[in-house]
């Protein structure tokens, strides 16, 4: 089983991102779960969203997990939230930031000995450039596709178009660009 924890603020699209990821992973024949833990459900409040992915039906319903991937889509939460909570020696981190990786890690003591498992990408700037709004979920999906190696980029983009089918073409195109850019820029 692969487990993923998203750190986000309400309104940044982590819940939608987790559900979209689940939807696309399911098309590969895997079983998925996507859920979130809301605080008081106000825009801007910190929240966590979760994915589970497995080859067999997922029957655990506990909220607790030891994540394989931690996806942080709000730059400040990397500093203020406990992003390494319940992690493993193999947990990979993908963090939204405008900073260089080395500078970011200097700011976050919990990541000091994990530098080889930390990846950075500026999802906020990418979404501003491509979608026109600060919606960092789509670029994070692109970065995750690259870091996890779970899909070919083209396969993911095709399926994402299906997930976004109800939106105007402009939004779909923006999301495709956002995913592609983050895929190429994550490091």
């Amino acid at each position, binding site marked *: 089983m692969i487990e993923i924890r998203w750190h986000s603020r309400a309104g940044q699209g982590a819940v939608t991102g*987790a*559900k979209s990821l*689940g*939807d696309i992973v*399911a*098309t590969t024949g895997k*079983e*998925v*779960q*996507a*859920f*979130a833990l809301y605080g008081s459900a106000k825009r801007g409040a910190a929240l966590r969203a979760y994915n589970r992915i497995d080859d067999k*039906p*997922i*029957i*655990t*319903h*506990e*909220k*607790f997990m030891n994540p394989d991937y931690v996806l942080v889509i709000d730059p400040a939460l990397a500093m203020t939230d406990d992003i390494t909570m319940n992690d493993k020696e193999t947990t990979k981190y993908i963090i939204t930031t405008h900073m260089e990786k080395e500078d970011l890690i200097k700011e976050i003591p919990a990541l000091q000995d994990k530098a080889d498992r930390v990846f950075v990408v500026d999802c906020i700037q990418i979404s501003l450039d491509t979608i026109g709004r600060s919606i960092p979920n789509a670029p994070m999906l692109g970065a995750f596709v690259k870091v996890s190696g779970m899909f070919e980029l083209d396969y993911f983009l095709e399926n994402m178009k299906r997930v976004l089918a109800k939106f105007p073409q402009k939004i779909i195109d923006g999301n495709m660009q956002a995913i592609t850019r983050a895929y190429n820029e994550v490091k």
Partner: protein
Amino acid sequence: MAEKFDLNEREVWDGNYAASQALRQARVDVVAAYPITPSTPIVENYGAYVANGYIDGEFVMVESEHAAMSGCVGASAAGGRVATATSSQGFALMAEVLYQASGMRLPIVLTVVNRALASPLNVRGDHADMYLGRDSGWIQIDAFNAQEAYDLTLCAFKIGENHSVRLPVMVHQDGFITSHTAQNVYPLSDEKAYEFVGEIVPVDDMLDFSRPVTYGAQTEEDWHFEHKAKQHKALMDSRPVIDEVFAEFEKFTGRKYNRVEGYDMDDAEVVIVALGTTVETARVAAQELREEGIKAGVVGIRVFRPFPFDDVRDMLENAKSVAVLDRSSPGGAMGAFFNEVSAALYTTPNRPLVTNYIYGLGGRDFSVNEAKRIFMEQKANADAGHITTDIQQFSGLRGPHLGYFQTKRS
């Protein structure tokens, strides 16, 4: 004529979406509803289907849950297929009309997304509302995940509307844990789903003007008791019909439901008995403990009303120590579910040890590790031959241990 809704063979849906799709596919004539967290999306999705032309039936927005169930009573008495959704305080406000609906033998389907009752105010899942309905005369079916919320909502119409049943049916799912967790769901096509549910054939419908009938009559000590006895008999007699509907559902989908579900129960010595998502989480714990040689098993109650006294007995009679998990504040007694399971087991020759855990109130997480800990306490009981802990304990509570009553031993 309703627009065609495109569905894939495999969808990723949460429990709310799954329930709303089942309502759409059953071609409900009237939905009267007042949304409340966490079942709001059932009403919201259904409203969107109406607005987008996917529904031929009526959708009535009302001013309260009391009015929602009252609207359902009227529409059902008129002869329609009727459904609604609610949770928690909304359920509590419906309570009066729930008894009216069952007493009038109206086959309304109510999808209940279980949530704690205030105070303190809490939007998350526990079974307080489900327990509040347990003497209301409704059939209560419990889904453990989103797929089951979909499947069992379809089954609910076919059970309640059966002419030898004619009772309202609740389909429960856990607030947030099921209702807001997306997972793989394998729906039927619209045609297959409707073929399974079938057309409603009303009985004594008020719109049959050639044969006038009265609903909601008054009976005092002359006949009230007989009416209530008939209602209880109807609930008890619904058991074989429920079994038939589940058997037919299996023919359509390959998915088999039972009024009591047993997992790893063939040789189980230590058992967790639970409702809702906890059944599945406990199964993970049982499977892990079996790798360590502990004979753990799980029993899930699929049909809470009519309570499967006989099947619970059959399933558990060879167990050694049984933990019954109540996700509702017991309010000065042993957990109600514990009492019911204990009563069933008291009439077995073996009389396994039975303990009571109060857990998960207001959405407190129930983990695989906690399920394992509970299993291990049962193991200690089984080895000692008596209950080694308090008979009732709170599980997952912060602060000092809370528990009551010990086994009397000479």
